[in-house]
């Protein structure tokens, strides 16, 4: 009874977040144009899916009801071949497949494009944590920003933290910025996946895969490794924190030891500003 009332309450108060929720129905809230495109395609396909489901179910039920031996004893023995019927049941599904295929290909190729990104983040899968590199920014010694991102164990969680999803170091990126993610792995195949950003890409040792990402709004987006990679596969989450440009610059200056120039920026921040002309 309690379960039923909870289910009813959940159905009437449907809410989604940037992480999966217990008993969640449907998709998470989107945070990127890629994700919105995927949801649009899903809804397009659902339209045809419902049409086919209801049509086929009707035909099946009607056949069972009307054309069984008890109900209809007339055997249509001369109905061995029907050219028109065959044409209908061949061409109709073909038209539906074409209607589904074209938007699907369009989205697929759009998601594959990485055109003129403003910054690059490299994500490397390890057994069982993620390493990240921001190679656009260098310190005095020529080192880029690099850090590892481990799951926060249950004993260290604070109130509001998500179990099995929280990490010690998040990937911080600015909103409304065209970012290129390069993904790879050091040991076995992993998969970098963040559902609410419409991202899922295999990380393969010795190979670089890439995708582009523009995040529409500030937020913390959670994902998990999505390729079975060993015993702790379920314990290497991905957390992307999208912040405003100002907050991003502040985070950057925390990552690299600051040495201020005349303008008041560290060189890395200056580099960032020159890299992000459209949003500065």
């Amino acid at each position, binding site marked *: 009874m309690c379960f039923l009332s909870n289910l009813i309450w959940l159905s009437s108060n449907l809410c989604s977040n940037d992480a999966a929720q217990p008993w969640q129905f449907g998709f998470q809230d*989107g945070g990127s144009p890629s994700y*919105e495109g995927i*949801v649009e395609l899903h*809804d397009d396909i*659902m*339209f*045809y899916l*419902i*049409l*086919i*489901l*209801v*049509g*086929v*179910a*009707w*035909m099946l039920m*009607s056949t069972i009801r*009307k054309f069984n031996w008890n109900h209809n004893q*007339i055997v*249509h023995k001369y*109905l061995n071949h029907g050219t028109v*019927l065959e044409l*209908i049941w061949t061409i109709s599904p073909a038209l539906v497949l074409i209607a589904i295929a074209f938007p699907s290909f369009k989205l697929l190729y759009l998601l594959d494009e990485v055109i003129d990104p403003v910054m690059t983040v490299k994500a490397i899968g390890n057994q069982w944590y993620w390493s990240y590199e921001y190679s656009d920014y260098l310190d005095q010694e020529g080192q880029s920003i690099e850090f590892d991102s481990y799951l926060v164990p249950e004993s260290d969680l604070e109130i509001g933290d998500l179990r099995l999803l929280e990490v010690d170091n998040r990937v911080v990126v600015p909103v409304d910025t065209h970012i290129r993610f390069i993904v790879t792995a050091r040991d076995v195949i992993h998969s970098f996946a963040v559902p609410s950003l419409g991202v899922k890409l295999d990380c393969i040792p010795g190979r670089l895969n890439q995708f582009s990402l523009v995040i*529409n*709004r500030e937020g913390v987006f959670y994902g998990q490794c999505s390729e079975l990679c060993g015993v702790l596969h379920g314990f290497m989450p991905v957390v992307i924190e999208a912040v405003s440009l100002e907050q991003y610059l502040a985070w950057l200056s925390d990552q690299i030891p600051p040495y201020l120039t005349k303008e008041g920026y560290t060189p890395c921040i200056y580099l960032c500003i020159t890299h992000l002309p459209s949003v500065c």
Partner: protein
Amino acid sequence: MALAPITGILRKRLIFDISAGLGLGLACSYAYWYGVHIPSVRKRDAFYAKLAQEKSQ
């Protein structure tokens, strides 16, 4: 007693079933489209419009 004609029963039945099945299917599809898809798109667009307004202020 006159017997009911038995010619054309299958054809009529098939035409009826195809029309009814696809018609009902189309009605359900449009119910999904206007009942689920369009409201969610409106909700999303309203959110981003509000966000854009907040950013511009």
